[in-house]
């Protein structure tokens, strides 16, 4: 039937351009790899420079406590406070620790003692967490000191403490990569289905074949289907490749059902394809289409909850995210991969997504006439 010819032509065009093949198959894989490995919000290898004025066994023990894990790595040991500041300024240390003279003595005498920690606050997120960890080490050391003393005096019945026991759900090793990868899948699919489809339609406008198609008996529905079906198929190919790599290479758990994931993606594609088509109806050149789609994509990504948590945003921004399809899709994909979310769990995300999709797609179809002007 007619649709077959349209789809066939589209696929031929896509695969004949070697660069496009690279873009569709190789680039997303590179993206996946880079994102997964680069995007770690985990703290590691924070460079800590130390000024130990005390040089006792106690101070050495504190220093060892810091470097016991790979959280902190030594960035040098200096003799004067000014040197500490210099290392921070020159960017050769991320944090500095200053242990005052008399540290060991004060502790042994049961007195209060204070160490100085300076953090390079430039990277506020890292600094905040780094500072938090640094403080945690201090607290742990404090607890250890108290325990030691209490051990010497048998358990005093007057000591009562709370013991917290932590359990992590879904991601016991807390790999931030697991949080990121599902989101990258969404990004890949969005770019392929939104950007490329929109540009493909405008390309026909530019080279004049759109006019030719308008003079032919094909219906707007056939035209749109012919343009979108190939990219729907390609999006599913992307989804499969990305999921396979994620699960096999990165050991990303897939707690939920892949079928559900595929189904949700269909709804998401309604939105992205509709958006791409809509953009193409208001653009005369590929460049215009690209800029338009790009504009919305960038802000869509920023406000999707991928990089920056939505919870932290002011109220007005949070309201805006309710019309951002990426926000819903991110939650859906993460839910399915990491939490084993079921259809009922996801309905609050799927329904708005569906509504948005219907809106976009109908708008696109309505604007699509077989006439110029």
């Amino acid at each position: 039937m007619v649709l077959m010819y349209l789809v066939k032509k589209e696929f031929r065009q896509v695969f004949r351009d070697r660069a496009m093949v690279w873009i569709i198959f190789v680039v997303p894989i590179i993206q996946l790899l880079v994102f997964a490995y680069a995007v770690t919000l985990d703290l590691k290898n924070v460079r800590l420079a130390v000024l130990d004025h005390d040089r006792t066994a106690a101070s050495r023990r504190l220093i060892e406590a810091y470097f016991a894990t790979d959280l902190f790595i030594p960035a040098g040991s200096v003799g004067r406070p000014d040197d500490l500041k210099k290392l921070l300024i020159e960017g050769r240390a991320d944090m500095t620790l200053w242990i005052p003279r008399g540290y060991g003595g004060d502790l042994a005498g049961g007195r209060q003692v204070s160490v100085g920690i300076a953090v390079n606050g430039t990277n506020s997120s890292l600094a905040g967490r780094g500072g938090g960890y640094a403080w945690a080490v201090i607290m742990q050391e404090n607890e250890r000191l108290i325990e030691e003393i209490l051990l010497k005096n048998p358990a005093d019945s007057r000591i009562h403490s709370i013991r917290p026991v932590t359990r992590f759900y879904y991601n016991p090793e807390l790999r931030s990569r697991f949080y990121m990868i599902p989101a990258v899948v969404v990004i890949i699919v969005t770019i392929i289905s939104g950007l490329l489809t929109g540009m493909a339609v405008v390309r026909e406008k530019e080279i004049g074949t759109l006019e030719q198609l308008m003079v032919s008996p094909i219906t707007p529905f056939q035209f749109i289907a012919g343009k979108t079906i190939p990219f729907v198929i390609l999006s599913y190919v992307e989804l499969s490749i990305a999921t396979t790599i994620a699960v096999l290479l990165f050991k990303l758990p897939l707690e939920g059902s892949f079928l559900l994931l595929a189904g949700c993606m269909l709804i998401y594609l309604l939105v992205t394809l509709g958006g791409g088509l809509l953009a193409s109806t208001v653009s005369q050149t590929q460049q215009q289409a690209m800029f338009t789609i790009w504009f919305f994509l960038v802000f869509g990504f920023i406000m999707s909850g991928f990089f920056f948590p939505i919870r932290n945003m002011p109220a007005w921004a949070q309201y805006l995210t309710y019309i951002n399809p990426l926000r819903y899709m991110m939650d859906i994909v993460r839910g399915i991969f990491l939490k084993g979310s079921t259809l009922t769990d996801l309905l609050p995300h799927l329904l708005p997504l569906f509504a948005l999709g219907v809106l976009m797609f109908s708008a696109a179809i309505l604007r699509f006439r077989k006439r110029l002007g």
Partner: protein
Amino acid sequence: MRRVIGIARKEILHILRDPRSLAVAILMPAMMVLLFGFAINLELRDLPVGILDMDGSSASRELIRSMTSSGFIVNGGYLSSRSEIEPGFRHNRFQAALVIPRGYARSLIRNPSTEVQILIDGADGATAATVDNYMNAVIAMTNRSSLPRSLAPSLPLLEARIRYFFNPQLVSAHFIVPGLVALIMVMICAILTSITVAREKETGTMEQILTAPVGAHQIILGKFIPYILIGAFDASLILAIGHLVLDVPMHGSWMVLAGYSMLYLLIALALGLLISTVSRTQQVAMMLALITTLLPTLLLSGFIFDHSSMPVVLQHLSKIVPATYYLRVIRGIMLVGRNWFPLEGGVMLGMTVVLLITAVRRFKSRLE
């Protein structure tokens, strides 16, 4: 020289006449700065924690109060049974749950140690770890403050004074706005340049220019000028908004910043030119531009994600990303007050030279 200006004028007119180019070139950066300044926050705050208080005593309420008093954690709702915890995670209602067992208050008085459970949604690994840290710390402090007076004086008390330099309030904007300059400059310049040239190639106007007595160097210069102007304008816009509206400090010299920024701009433009010489269609040009400029700048340069926690391979890769060096420079100038960056300056200069030579050479050979 006149011809160069002629080409530059044509290019500028193109951009000015197309409202979408303007939107991407000017509106987008402005919106992004404001968005990042006012809406985006990298810090963790107001994390909802679900409370399952099976004891209901004043002691348990006291624990809950001390957990939520700092604002870091907020009460995410009272649960009535354990079975509500997982659904709460899956529906993103709260990030963690605090389970206080029945008999908590009595056990506190009788037993040396009483267990409470902290259940955390680990999906968001980084936040999860921080929540864990925090809740443990609160409990540790509670423990310490509950030590009987008579014992307390003879127990050592280790404390830390923590100071944050260069950004004492840990304002996200101070960190992000300089990075945004780098990101937007490279995004716009590279994309616009590569697209423009690719477009001219496709629609054939490149041949028309070539038939005029204009040399390749002049074409390139003419093309660069408008984007240099746009890039300079954008950078100034972002910095102005950042400094005046968002209070991002400027401890160093504006001149020095301008100089290094110019260098960075040239790198971006040369990259854009290079991309245009290897792309046959606009779709390809755009994708290539995204991959080689946007992605590395976003992920590998230190814009948001820190180098220290990346695997070694990527750390090496980040060394060839121009933004890595520029970010050090701009943050160093604005937040730290440094004005001399021998290493970064040298590398950037080298990159500029290499990229320009390669791009110009390829451009010339494409013309013939």
